[in-house]
């Protein structure tokens, strides 16, 4: 690596060898095919997006956006009887975890067995969170396209929730899901009632995105399989949350919100609430249905319960207090600071500012140097892949590949080979820590 790249690195020149060919760049830490966010190429793209939006704002556009699409599916479902059979016939629903529980338990001959129990969606809502967890754990089988593509599943389980038979897939892989099914049955039995059918898909249509934010950063997101969140839209959400210091803290907020990249022609409705008394962690539940406040309010309670049970909020507090990675902990001599962006996930990691960038004026200056280097690399007339910038106060190595974009800051006297060796080391470190630094798996429903 050092040989090929160092020969091609020089101040403001094209690298002849595409760096993609070498081992390190192929590491491309933080790469993911299954990103939570849509991939954008650069900040420039995001600027472009904003300009585009402004133009669209002035043009009257009539198109069927994501919201009308969702609204359509909603109304279509609304007209359908709530019945397991119907739901499984609906091919639009097949992507969601639709299942029919056939209660074959002979001991269960209560009279109310045949009577329609309480609104089955009640039970479903209680279990949405459980199911989501199940999906995380059993991604392999439940997210398996072939398995999903089956129009009708039949599961048989024991009273204790042990899998006995599944029409598709191995029963062993469905242990947890069947456990949830049994929990649902038991839940309703507790109320001296029994489940006849559950419609999983319909309930879930309403929610499009569930987002948890802390310290202006995305903690996690669950999204509808079909829809991804564009970084521009996430920026809007982050700004909305971070720019209001008290208005979301008093209670639960219900507000329309336009995410222009998702659909510039309509509104989503956002349930916004803080999950902790200190107001560190904020959750947004976004739906297309303006009447779902109470559904989502209930949903929030359940999510909160789970997060509390597993002490997640404390973990988030600790992570915020630590405040990102420190270069001094990575143990690369000469490296003062870096910014690394994984392009496929549209996520970046930026080291904490440490000496000599301890006061605001100093890191603002460093940031402006980053801007200069970034601008030079992305000049449209002559874009660069690698730039070794030597300044009075620091030296910056900028490197752009198809997988990532990296800016690393060194002392002003560092030599090219030393800088390159350090960057190699840094990429290996990022690769090692990528699960911690990036959100690589996208949770969908």
């Amino acid at each position, binding site marked *: 690596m050092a040989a090929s790249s160092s020969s091609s690195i020089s101040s403001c020149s094209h690298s002849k060898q595409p760096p993609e060919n070498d081992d390190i760049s192929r590491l491309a830490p933080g790469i993911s095919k299954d990103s939570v966010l849509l991939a954008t190429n650069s900040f420039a793209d995001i600027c472009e997006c904003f300009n585009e939006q402004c133009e669209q704002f002035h043009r009257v556009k009539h198109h069927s956006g994501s919201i009308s699409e969702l609204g359509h599916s909603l109304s279509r479902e609304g007209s359908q009887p709530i019945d397991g059979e119907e739901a499984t016939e609906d091919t639009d629903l097949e992507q969601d975890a639709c299942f029919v529980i056939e209660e074959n338990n002979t001991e269960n001959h209560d009279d109310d067995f045949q009577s329609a129990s309480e609104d089955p969606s009640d039970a479903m809502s209680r279990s949405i969170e459980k199911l989501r967890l199940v999906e995380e754990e059993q991604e392999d089988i439940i997210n398996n396209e072939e398995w999903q593509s089956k129009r009708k599943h039949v599961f048989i389980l024991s009273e204790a929730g042990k899998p006995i038979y599944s029409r598709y897939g191995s029963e062993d892989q469905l242990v947890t899901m069947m456990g949830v099914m049994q929990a649902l049955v038991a839940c309703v039995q507790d109320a001296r009632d029994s489940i006849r059918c559950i419609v999983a898909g319909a309930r879930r249509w309403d929610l499009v995105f569930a987002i948890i934010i802390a310290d202006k950063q995305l903690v996690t997101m669950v999204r509808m399989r079909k829809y991804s969140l564009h970084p521009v839209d996430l920026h809007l959400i982050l700004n909305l949350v971070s720019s209001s210091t008290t208005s979301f803290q008093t209670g639960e907020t*219900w507000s329309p919100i336009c995410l222009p990249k998702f659909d510039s022609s309509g509104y989503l409705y956002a349930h916004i609430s803080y999950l902790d008394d200190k107001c560190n962690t904020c959750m947004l539940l976004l739906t297309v249905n303006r009447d779902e406040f109470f559904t989502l309010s209930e949903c929030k309670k359940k999510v909160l319960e789970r997060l509390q049970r597993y002490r997640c909020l404390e973990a988030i507090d600790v992570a915020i207090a630590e405040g990102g990675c420190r270069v001094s902990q990575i143990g690369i001599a000469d490296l003062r600071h870096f910014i690394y962006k994984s392009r496929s996930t549209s996520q970046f990691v930026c080291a904490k500012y440490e000496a000599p960038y301890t006061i605001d004026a100093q890191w603002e200056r460093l940031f402006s140097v980053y801007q200069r280097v970034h601008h030079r690399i992305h000049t449209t007339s002559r874009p660069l892949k690698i730039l070794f910038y030597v300044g009075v106060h620091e030296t910056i190595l900028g490197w752009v590949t198809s997988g990532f974009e990296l800016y690393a800051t060194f002392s002003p006297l560092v030599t090219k080979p030393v800088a390159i060796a350090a960057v190699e080391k840094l990429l290996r470190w990022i690769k090692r820590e990528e699960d911690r630094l990036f959100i690589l798996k996208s949770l969908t429903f």
Partner: protein
Amino acid sequence: MANRGQVQRPAGSSLQGKICQFKLVLLGESAVGKSSLVLRFVKGQFYEYQESTIGAAFLTQTVCLDDITVKFEIWDTAGQERYHSLAPMYYRGAQAAIVVYDITSQDTFNRAKSWVKELQRQANPNIVIALAGNKADLADKRMVEFEDGQAYADENSLVFVETSAKTAMNVNDVFLTIAKKLPKSEPSGPSGGASSRRLDEGATDQASTGCCK
């Protein structure tokens, strides 16, 4: 800080008494003090600089009236004009409304009147409306006379009160007055507020339908 006046927290008494649940919405021009009134009532707090509300905030507060526990589900709406079209979503099915104006601004009083008209035209016909002239602590800057507010309220059968979220004057009273006026014998659910809830309130609705078990 917390001036809770006559609001009694239920503290277990709800088990023996009757529980009524009411949807209440706050409407009024931007910056008249809707959020401050709610915050004073619900949390006993007041902030000199209260941020603009985005969309609407949902809060609950429970008060005890003799042997009845009244639970208010409060929608504190954004006053900015751009949110106007959303208002029906929040007042639909509400059993009570507090229309707020700022006694130091005639414009906000006029806006309050148009909110009252809109409610009379479009809201639940039995809605209990209270007119609240807020910022009563700023009496030296008063632009709307007490009598004007009272006269308008009398004409339209509204509860009228001047309040100060800052000093807590009459804040709890306006909610308690509303609580007393709300019908306790009728079911509080079906008028719309609760009917829009589909799954969460299954149990509570049953408990509170007919209000008093």
